[in-house]
């Protein structure tokens, strides 16, 4: 229902009055290294998100461990789990209530395309969160490992700042 152009159009008319060259880069660097996710665990991926936030995988190394319950204080929505039709209105409301520099990570197959719950004649699951609002990073997996979530965060940071801070792991 929203095409990339209309999203870019929406983004452009949210842009601030005053724009700087160097300051925006610094702002982007600051934002990239302090992404505050919204506690929005829906299903199995939420447990992997909690594991990523806990001691072994520890996304506080990337500044993202502060899980804000209120959408007003969060700038990153990690949709971790299945969005079903009864929940779609609430998800859109939460997306609206987040202040502007906001990004969305679709974590897990359910958030990307409805995942294992898509079959002819299915009546309850929204097949993909990008049907509701634009998504910045997709993390496949069912559930994706915490390392995949960290790679998703790095991909989002790369999208923000333009350069990749951590070496990319080459699968041998």
């Amino acid at each position, binding site marked *: 229902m929203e095409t990339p152009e209309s999203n870019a159009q929406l983004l452009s008319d949210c842009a601030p009055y005053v724009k700087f060259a160097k300051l925006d880069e610094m702002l982007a660097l600051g934002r990239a290294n302090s992404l505050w996710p*919204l*506690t*929005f*665990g*829906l*299903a*199995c991926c*939420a*447990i*992997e998100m*909690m*594991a990523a936030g*806990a*001691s*072994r995988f520890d996304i506080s190394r990337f500044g993202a461990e502060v*899980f804000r*319950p209120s*959408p007003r204080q969060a700038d990153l929505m990690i949709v971790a*789990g*299945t969005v*079903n039709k*009864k*929940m779609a209105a*609430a998800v859109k409301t*939460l997306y609206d209530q987040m202040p502007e520099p906001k990004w969305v990570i679709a974590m897990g197959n359910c958030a990307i395309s409805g995942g*294992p*719950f898509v*079959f002819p*004649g*299915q*009546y*309850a*699951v929204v097949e993909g969160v990008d049907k509701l609002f634009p998504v910045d990073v997709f993390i496949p997996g*069912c*559930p994706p*490992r915490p390392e995949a979530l960290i790679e998703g965060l790095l991909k989002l940071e790369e999208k923000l700042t333009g350069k990749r801070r951590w070496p990319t792991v080459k699968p041998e």
Partner: protein
Amino acid sequence: MLVKDAIVSNGTPNETFTLNLGPQHPATHGVLRVKMTMDGEYIVRAEPVCGYIHRMQEKMGENRTYAQFLPNTSRIDYLSAMTYTHGFVGAVERALKLQVPPRAEYMRVITSELNRISSHLVWWGAFLLDLGGFTPLLYAFDDREKILDLLEGITGSRLTYSYFRIGGLYNDVDDQFLKGTREFVTQMRPRLKMYRSLVTDNIILRKRLIDIGPVSPEMCRKYGATGPVIRGSGVPYDVRRVEPYSVYSEFDFVIPTFPETDSMARYLVRMEEMAQSLRIIEQALDKLPAGPVMAEKVPRVLKLPAGDYCYATEAARGRFAVRIVSDGKEIPYRVKLRTPSLSNLSLFEEASAGMLLPDALALMGSLDLVIPDIDR
């Protein structure tokens, strides 16, 4: 509404307002919504609204064969996925009268109990998070990662295993897993002692949990609540002991029961269950027989004889039962999943009337809910 309007608002003397403990809330650990009518800090009526994560599990049971439904079973309650797969696979084996080799039965018990400990650790971390303490979550997930490494070694996945197959197991167990499990058991016991001194004996936790949310045995029976909820009310009901399935009857373990019926009792039941699970794992490791892990002649296309078959297992949250109604074809006619969280939550409305809001959240945390387990 301006201030001057507020004064003239014709509020009735006993004014209550409706608060949405909505789908997105840190204390509900999932998308459970509780519509609470509040009088100040006291709850007049708390009505849970479910369905925000309904994923059509039972509808999918009717359009895929028995083997295809296995991945679904570990996504109903992803924290004790083994016992759910065990329930479904057990029902099919019961219908086909398949004889599962003893090594597979023992491995099923070992992995189920490991899964129960990892589920209780997630509950423990999240419950303390509800009560305000963040550190226990880090301790709990640190230990849980050790279990996940063990289970990932043999099943290949961290959470949604579907490790059991109809008639046995997916693959045999290497001795790296066996050695790792023994090491885990020996290093987990002092950790449990540390948890007792770090948290269980903490005066703040005791003040927050003792005499909070009493659930009488009669209320448990009326609502069908099972698992740590009914064992916290003094009734020693445990499917592993009352309707022994698999090889549980060969192990000697205690069903922890606390008669105080409050949240502290439910808390202590789960902490004690972790210790009991360690005992079961140890005994199962000692008596693990050699041999195949898959029954010999498992028919390629499974056609259950007509009729309905039930199988109940003891999941981390309580009694999980599967009812398969078959009409002789290879696709089940109806798959009914009786999940414990639905019954455990159904008593929340009656148990939380008149409580303070923070106490009601402590009660809900002590019920240990997994919301996709309710909505299926």
